[in-house]
């Protein structure tokens, strides 16, 4: 499967355009966007993203017609220093084109959706001027993500890797002067900063993995690394383990795994299209892509694979429990995303790369659908709230209305029927109900876990799947069924077609996405086989039955608790009493943030203050330099000059210099009390002595 260096056939030469198009889009919007209408700005950005999608299709087609043979497309030199040879080279193969299609395909749909969404969002937040900025950032994200998935070396991948991190920062902090309720606050910008710094911790791991790789395997280029790895694994497996585990730190940062997942729930501060595109469908799956890409390394070291699989499984289960206790419609989906990413990471950790990628693709469809539908719900509530305010029904003035809070919803299947059905499709796909997309992909992961003998992983993921069905059921009952618990919900209005039509496309994909890799057909397996080593997953009827039963049980239990007796306004969660402290833990995210703050963040702040104020300033700057050095010097020079030196000669010189200095700057003397004079004098004396000695020697 060696890639030939010079593209000869097909559309491979177009590869750089997957990045150029969005870059052109954002530059145009920066330069002339101010003169365009909102629609113009939005469609320009969407067009740029769509052009990138078209190129991705052409590239995938070229790989397909070439019987799966990929190409490396060289654009230009980047860093050549000694043995370090990094170029801007695009890698087009079945794995990277799969990612390109997902990123630009889902990306374009979300661009279009955002034309409608942001139009309303900037008006609810009274700042229409920020509309254009959103699409500039969104195009920048597509460009960075394309670099990530198409780079031919770990370092070009890293450019995209940090680039998407930057976009994430910019978009989480899009409403940087507010909190999620639109009040003036530091909250959103804090969330943005937290995401960037947490990701940087992961990037530190990535860099260390890179250094180890370069000095032990001699390159950053994928093929060269993979070629050199087996020999090293035979002699020093510890180094490959170190590389893969440091890489896992990077994965934990970007793909929100334990222990670095904490930024993702806060990232929901970004506008909903951002949550869908970056924090559900594409960017957060970069870690899964990285491990899949690095399959030849991970397969060499089962120890590291085990760690990866356990990280994923524990994250999947842990995050699912938190999702149960959340009230914010987007937070539920955020923890669900962490949990589902755990499924994928567990899959690629077990070596089930196709299953992981399969779930990555279907998850991109249904989670984007869920987030965007949630966005539609939120806008519907905002419209209802706005409507009330305009008609004077607004009787709760001082209270801030939270359109994300599911406790303010209820009965919305009647007010927003289209959104309701779309949400249902997403939910069924996520819960893994036959025959929706999630059923097939999740099942393949579970079947692989079962067959590969990862029993612990299998059971943890199965329990997580039960929780998934349960918290999604809880959400559906709370949002769409029962009675409206807030006036705004009763007056919610359905979203316009610019918002619902992209959702319908995603819904269709969520229904049919399973067809990508149906048991017996293995379309995706055959496709990816050209790039990575795969084994065709077998369909295990027992596994499928167990997971279906668990999913149905989850939905049923959620109906018992939330569906049969709908929540009333002001009523606490019915699980609160029976579960007691357990539920408090779930509600409060198991206090992980508080723990991190107490153990790491506050300590770092203390340390840096201590170093800055006590060590650097009071001790080093003031005491040591002012008191000890300057003070001692003054003291010595006074005594020395007075007692031992020839009074007349030195005095004359000193006085002369003193007068000179005095004339030059009177204030200087005030500050330093003659200290400078004696210092300068002795410097001069020293030089004269040394020179004299050397001359006469």
């Amino acid at each position: 499967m060696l890639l030939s260096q010079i593209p000869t056939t097909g559309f491979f030469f177009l590869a750089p355009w997957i990045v150029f198009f969005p870059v052109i889009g954002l530059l145009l919007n920066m330069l002339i966007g101010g003169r365009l209408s909102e629609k113009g700005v939005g469609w320009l950005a969407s067009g740029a993203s769509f052009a990138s999608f078209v190129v991705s299709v052409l590239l995938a087609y070229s790989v397909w017609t070439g019987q799966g043979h990929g190409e490396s497309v060289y654009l230009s030199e980047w860093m050549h220093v000694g043995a370090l040879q990094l170029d801007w080279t695009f890698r087009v193969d079945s794995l990277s084109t799969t990612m390109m299609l997902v990123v630009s395909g889902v990306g374009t749909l979300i661009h279009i959706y955002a034309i409608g969404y942001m139009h309303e969002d900037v008006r609810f937040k009274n700042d229409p001027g920020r509309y254009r900025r959103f699409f500039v950032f969104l195009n920048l994200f597509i460009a960075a993500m394309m670099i990530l998935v198409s780079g031919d070396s770990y370092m070009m991948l890293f450019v995209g890797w940090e680039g998407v991190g930057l976009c994430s920062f910019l978009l989480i902090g899009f409403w940087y002067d507010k909190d999620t309720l639109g009040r003036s606050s530091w909250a959103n910008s804090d969330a943005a900063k937290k995401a960037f710094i947490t990701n940087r911790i992961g990037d530190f791991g990535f860099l260390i993995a890179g250094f180890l790789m370069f000095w032990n395997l001699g390159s950053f280029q994928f093929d060269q690394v993979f070629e050199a790895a087996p020999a090293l694994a035979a002699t020093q497996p510890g180094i490959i383990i170190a590389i893969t585990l440091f890489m896992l730190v990077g994965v934990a940062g970007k793909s929100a795994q334990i222990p670095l997942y904490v930024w993702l729930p806060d990232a929901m501060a970004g506008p909903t299209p951002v949550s869908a595109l970056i924090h559900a469908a594409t960017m957060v799956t970069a870690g899964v892509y990285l491990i899949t890409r690095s399959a030849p390394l991970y397969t060499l070291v089962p120890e590291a694979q085990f760690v990866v699989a356990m990280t994923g499984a524990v994250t999947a289960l842990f995050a699912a429990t938190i999702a149960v206790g959340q009230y914010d419609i987007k937070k539920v989906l955020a923890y669900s995303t962490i949990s589902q990413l755990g499924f994928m990471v567990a899959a690629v950790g077990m070596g089930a790369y196709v299953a992981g990628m399969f779930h990555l693709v279907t998850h991109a469809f249904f989670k984007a659908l869920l987030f965007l539908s949630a966005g539609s719900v939120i806008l519907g509530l905002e419209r209802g709230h706005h409507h009330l305010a305009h008609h004077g029904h607004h009787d709760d003035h001082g209270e801030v209305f939270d359109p994300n809070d599911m406790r303010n919803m209820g009965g919305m299947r009647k007010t927003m029927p289209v959104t309701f059905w779309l949400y249902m499709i997403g939910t069924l796909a996520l819960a893994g109900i036959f025959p929706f997309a999630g059923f097939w992909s999740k099942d393949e992961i579970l079947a692989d876990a079962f067959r590969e003998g990862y029993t612990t992983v299998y059971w943890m993921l199965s329990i997580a799947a039960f929780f998934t069905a349960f918290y999604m059921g809880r959400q559906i009952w709370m949002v769409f069924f029962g009675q409206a618990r807030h006036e705004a919900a009763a007056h919610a209005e359905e979203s316009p077609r610019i918002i619902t039509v992209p959702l319908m496309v995603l819904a269709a994909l969520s229904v049919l996405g399973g067809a990508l890799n149906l048991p017996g057909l293995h379309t995706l397996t055959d496709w990816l086989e050209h790039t990575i080593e795969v084994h065709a997953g077998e369909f295990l009827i027992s596994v499928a039955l167990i997971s279906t039963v668990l999913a149905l049980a989850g939905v049923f239990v959620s109906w018992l608790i939330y569906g049969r007796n709908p929540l009333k306004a002001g009523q606490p969660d019915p699980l609160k009493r029976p579960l007691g402290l357990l539920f408090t833990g779930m509600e409060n995210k198991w206090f992980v943030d508080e723990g991190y703050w107490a153990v790491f963040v506050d300590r770092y702040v203390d340390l840096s203050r201590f170093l800055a104020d006590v060590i650097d300033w009071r001790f080093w700057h003031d005491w040591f330099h002012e008191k000890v050095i300057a003070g001692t010097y003054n003291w010595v020079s006074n005594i020395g000059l007075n007692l031992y030196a020839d009074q007349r000669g030195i005095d004359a010189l000193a006085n002369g210099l003193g007068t000179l200095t005095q004339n030059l700057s009177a204030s200087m003397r005030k500050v330093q009390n003659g200290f400078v004079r004696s210092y300068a004098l002795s410097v001069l004396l020293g030089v004269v002595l040394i020179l004299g000695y050397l001359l006469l020697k």
Partner: protein
Amino acid sequence: MEFLLQPLTLVTFFPLLGVLVLLILPGENKSLMRWTALVTSLVTFGISLWVLGMFNPSNPNLQLVAKYSWIQVAGWNIQYHMGVDGLSILLLLLTTFLTPISILSTWTAVEERVRDFMVFFLLLEVGMTGVFLAQDLFLFYIFWEFTLVPMYFLIGIWGGPRRIYAAIKFFLYTMAGSILMLLAILWLGIEGGTFSVPELIAAGGIPADIQFWLFLAFTAAFAIKVPMWPLHSWLPDAHVEAPTAGSVILAGVLLKMGTYGFLRFNIPLFPQAALQLAPWVALFATIGILYGAAVSYAQADVKKLVAYSSVSHLGFVMLGMFALNSQGMQGAILQMVNHGLSTGALFLLVGMIYEQTHTREIKVYGGLWKITPIFGSVMLIVALSSMGLPGLNGFVGEFTILLGAWGAGMPGGAFESFGGVWWAGLSALGVIMAAIYILFMFQRMFLGPEGSIVGETRQHGHGLRDLNWREILTILPLLIFIFWIGLYPKPFFDLMGPTVDNLVAALQTAKLAMP
């Protein structure tokens, strides 16, 4: 006449022509003085581009050499010896590039004694350029000490409230280090029979134990200038008190004189001492990286924050340089340029807002991005460059440095004897810590709700304004290089590559000669 028309002589001393014009200009026409200085520095930049045009990157040796016998007393052989090679060409260009930018930044910031200011500024340029081009130790020392004088007055006259204190501290601190260097220079010149650096390197043969002491003597001067931890105490004072243009030049060029000194003198003249002491330099560099980053984060004054970040960034330069391999050293040279660009730009931007608000306290700011969108966007790019975002210049430098430093920790590398890959590993933590202080600064000043200063300026009638055309013109050249070096550093690496390879090879030879 032939002497004056040497390209390197011309590029060094051309600003003196501007000084002359400024001194004889009658009247108090400030604008004319500013234009005189600006045009002079732009012509100097033009001359340096001419030098670049004549420079052959594939030749590792000194080029465009000007060499004249100068002082021949008591057996001393002091020459006027100038030359440029891969180690200095970029720093020459950085100097001539940053000077007009700094002058442009003073357009409305400096209103008092404009003539004097411009005279000192152009004199400073002469000194800095001379430092990077002098190939005779004595000549170098003269330029080196000469830079202190104009800088002393720039801080002392146009600085902040504690300017006298800061200026004196700057002067004495640097002076103190230079004394030991002077001693070493005299020893070398008298023992070697010449002060010419290439001749001394070619002669070689300095015993290892003497190399050790000479290395330390030069280090005393250079480590203070860099400044390496823990000799950085003069830097925050100097930066906080210096006028904007002074800070830009101080951070952008003057600190590089220290790192350049290590590269030009310590390593080639005393290769065995360099090999022996490399891990110890790495120790101090690593502490500097982490300490500078941590201390930066706790600053309330934005200029101080940037000042301490220099301690961290220059730690990277030292770490890479003493990795003594091509990645580390080329990364170090590039990072000198990068730091000049990004920290220079940071000081410019801080100066631009200070000019309007007269405060540098971070906590009074907030929400500026909304009020001054261009300013905020430019600051974001510069901040990201400073924290090493891939695709921008800072990353290329830091990455190659860390890669080189890691390699130096491998068997056969410079750090093998002590610390090994730990220096690179620990220093890489600086990547996280840089994100912490830079993002803190950006968030507290540009994001979040409007800070108190916004309301205050509005009460005074005008409110904060965004960058004007002159300011955009000042900062734009820096932005272009920030992207250029980040995306396509090849032309920059090509300029230094052959010279550095030569140096690395010389170090290999020296290593073989070691017991």
